[in-house]
C-alpha cells in the first residue's frame, strides 16, 4: 500500500509541467507575503483533491500538458513583474493550477485493482503537490526582500523560460522525432 502512496508523492516531481507550475505558484505566493500563503495553500489542496477525486468517476481524455505549461509560464511572468496582486486573481490562479494538476494526475485504471491503493496514490499526489508549493512559497517568503526581490524575479524568469522551452519541445515533438 505504501508503494502506491510513494508513487503518488513522486508523481508531481516526475512531471516537468506539474513541477514548473507548482514552483511558479509557490514563488508568486511567497512574493506576495504571508497573508496570501494560508488561503492559497488551502485553495490548492482543495482543488487538487477535488480534481483527483473527480478522475475516479469520470476522466477527461484531454492532453493538459499545454495548459499546464502555459499556466506555469504566466505565473512565472507574474513573479518576474513583481506586481502586488489582489487576493482574488491569486485564488483563481491557485484553483486553476490545482484543477490542472489534479486532472492530469488521473489514477491509472487497472482492471481488478481493489482496496484503497488508488486512494493512497492520489493522496500522495495531493499531499506532495501542496507541499511543493508550500515549501517553495516559504523559501520565496524568506528571499522576497533579498537584493530587492531580484532573486525571486530571476527564478520566476527561469521557470517561465523553462516552461516556454518545454512547450516548444512538446509542440515540435512530431517534427523532431
Amino acid at each position, binding site marked *: 500500500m505504501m508503494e502506491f502512496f510513494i508513487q503518488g508523492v513522486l508523481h508531481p516531481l516526475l512531471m516537468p509541467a506539474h513541477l514548473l507550475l507548482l514552483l511558479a505558484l509557490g514563488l508568486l505566493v511567497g512574493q506576495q507575503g504571508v497573508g496570501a500563503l494560508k488561503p492559497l495553500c488551502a485553495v490548492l489542496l482543495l482543488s487538487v483533491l477535488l480534481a483527483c477525486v473527480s478522475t475516479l468517476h469520470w476522466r477527461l481524455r484531454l492532453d493538459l500538458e499545454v495548459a499546464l505549461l502555459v499556466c506555469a509560464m504566466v505565473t512565472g511572468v507574474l513573479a518576474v513583474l513583481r506586481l502586488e496582486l489582489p487576493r482574488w486573481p491569486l485564488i483563481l490562479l491557485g484553483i486553476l493550477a490545482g484543477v490542472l494538476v489534479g486532472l492530469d494526475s488521473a489514477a491509472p485504471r*487497472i482492471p481488478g485493482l*481493489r482496496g484503497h491503493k488508488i486512494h493512497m496514490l492520489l493522496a500522495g499526489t495531493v499531499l506532495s503537490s501542496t507541499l511543493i508549493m508550500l515549501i517553495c512559497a516559504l523559501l520565496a517568503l524568506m528571499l522576497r526582500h533579498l537584493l530587492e526581490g531580484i532573486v525571486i524575479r530571476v527564478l520566476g524568469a527561469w521557470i517561465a523560460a523553462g516552461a516556454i522551452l518545454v512547450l516548444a519541445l512538446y509542440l515540435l515533438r512530431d517534427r523532431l522525432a
Partner: protein
Amino acid sequence: MMKIYRLFCGLALSGLLCIGTASAGGVHYTISASTHFYTDQAGQLAGMHMNWVYDPEVSAFILDGRDTSAAGLAQVAEDILADLDELNYFTALSIAGAPVSLSQVSEYSIKLTDQQGLQLGFQLPLAQAVAVDGKTFELVLSDPDATADINYNGVERLRLAESLAEQCAAPTLQGRSVAAAEHELTVQTVTIACE
C-alpha cells in the same frame, strides 16, 4: 562570461526537462496475450478464447493485500472481468470493416505463473455467431487509457479453430506505435482473410 554562464544554465535546464519528460510516467504494464478463435457447430465464428499473462509488477499491485488461494484468485478474476466488461475487454473485433458486438464472459480461469504473473484465461463470445467466408476480420486489443500495453509475442500466439483454418489464411500481425500522454506503446492489429 555571464552570457556563457546563462547559456550553460539554459542548456542544463532544458536538458533536465527533456530527460524529465522522457522518463516521466505513471503506472504502465504489459499483458502478453494469446487468442484462439473458435466456431460454433455451423462453422461460424462464435468467439475468442483469450489467455492474458500480466507482468509480475502489475500482478503484485493487483494481488497486494488479496487472498492468493484458489478461491481468492477466483475472486480476483471476477473483479478483473467485471472491470474489463465496462471496457469492452480491451477488444475491438471487426468483420469486413463492421464492428462486432461481444457478449459477457462467463467462463474463465486464473492462476499464477512461475514468474508470479497473473495468467487469466477467458472465453469471450460474440453476441451472435458470424459467417466469415469471403470476409476479412480484424482484432485489436488496446487499453483506451494507454495504461496497459497488450501484445502478442508472435503470430504463433494466434490460433484458428480447425474449420476456420481450412478456409482462412494464416493470421498476420501488424504493429503501430501510438503516442500516449506520457509514453509510446504499440497497438497490434490481427488480420485474418477468409475465402
